[in-house]
């Protein structure tokens, strides 16, 4: 159980996709016009993240290494389609306001990134909690940005009007999204600078170059990985025997706790 708590904390705080890794910027900017939209998008992504992590972790020894990216894409796209139709059927209002951004969860860096970095190397249960943690972290990020934009731009919180406040309309429009995110990252950078000064180390600031790694490495820049060892099934098991042992121990711990 410890591992589950650790995974959720990792997603919510240590490696929060919005505030620490600054991943998945398209939905972060596009759908955060209100807090409700942020929650809707965040929870949809969470569900897809959990399901795809579960599926990918379960199939991790079956999927050949060379074609793993297309396999992940198919799995993620299937769950995206399911969630899209569920929203259309049961929450048509939300589905309308999120528009094509629900379908575009397929290309969200966070999901393929977690598949590549965690689910493809770990057991099913930790992967599910990893998805849950990351998804909740993303939801918290989107919702808080949504709340800020809604207050500044529309003068409401979750649809409730704030009295005596004249809203600045630009914040719910496209430019407001860029400006809010710019200030958010600047504040995070300032925090990191202060921490680094206190510890006497060099601060890791968010640079634009960081963003490249999301479309390059974690999102599978290549459809078929020609550099990967050919046709190896269960490649992780062959390649990293030490790690496998560790995982087994962790898995046993999880089991005894249950």
């Amino acid at each position, binding site marked *: 159980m410890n591992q589950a708590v650790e995974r959720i904390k990792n997603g919510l705080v240590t490696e929060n996709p919005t505030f620490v890794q600054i991943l998945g910027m398209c939905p972060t*900017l596009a759908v955060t016009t209100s807090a409700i939209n942020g929650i809707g998008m965040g929870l949809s992504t969470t569900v897809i993240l959990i399901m795809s992590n579960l599926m990918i972790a379960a199939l991790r020894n079956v999927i050949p290494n060379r074609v793993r990216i297309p396999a992940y*894409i198919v799995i993620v796209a*299937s769950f995206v389609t399911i969630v899209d139709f569920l929203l259309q059927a049961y929450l048509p209002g939300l589905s309308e306001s999120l528009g094509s951004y629900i379908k575009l969860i397929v290309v969200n860096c966070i999901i393929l990134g977690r598949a590549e970095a965690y689910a493809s190397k770990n057991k099913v249960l930790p992967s599910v909690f990893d998805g849950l943690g990351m998804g909740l972290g993303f939801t918290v990020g989107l919702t808080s940005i949504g709340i800020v934009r809604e207050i500044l731009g529309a003068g409401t919180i979750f649809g409730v009007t704030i009295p005596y406040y004249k809203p600045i309309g630009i914040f719910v429009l496209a430019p407001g999204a860029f400006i809010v995110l710019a200030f958010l990252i600047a504040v995070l950078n300032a925090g990191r*600078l202060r921490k680094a000064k206190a510890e006497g180390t060099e601060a890791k600031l968010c640079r*634009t170059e960081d963003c490249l790694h999301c479309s390059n490495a974690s999102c599978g820049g290549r459809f078929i990985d020609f550099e990967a060892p050919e046709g190896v099934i269960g490649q992780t098991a062959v390649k990293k025997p030490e790690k496998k042992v560790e995982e087994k121990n962790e898995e046993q711990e999880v089991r005894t706790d249950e």
Partner: protein
Amino acid sequence: MSDATKIILIAISAALVNNVVLSQFLGLCPFLGVSKNMKSAGGMGVAVIFVIAISSAVANLIYQFILIPLNIEYLQTIVFILVIAALVQFVEMFLKKVIPSLHKTLGVYLPLITTNCAVLGVALNNVTDNYNFLESVVNGVGTAVGFTIAIVILAGIREKTEDNDIPLPFQGTPIVLLTAGLMAIAFMGFSGLIRL
């Protein structure tokens, strides 16, 4: 409205009014990541035009002649993303063999485009808006031209402001995002330019 005017309006609307980066937030990763200088921004822009033009044409043909006849329109997201990803890799291999000089210029950018949400976004929007083959291609090229305009302008501004004295926390991504925000305000001036 005649067909020709409609086509022109689609192109202008895609390139300027509903600019793909500045009002739809698609393709932000390359927009922020490859805009350090004009040369690479231009290269990225051309590569995006190339890929979106081909992919919106192919996606439209697949939708019309495979998905609709088989009654499996609901698979569009899965089919489109696979087709686009495969297509980008195929284009890369084709260019490497046939036009090596072009591959040298575009090569580094092509793999980055695979998961660029703009490409999938255009293909999906073409279906939502019921565009036919020609309209899809025009919308695709228009969107990509809009992307190129935005990224080249941003790269131009970044080249000029590179050595400016910016507060430390704002250096890097925040100042680029603020610049993009100001550009988005400028691009809002195009809204209301035309009505489809």
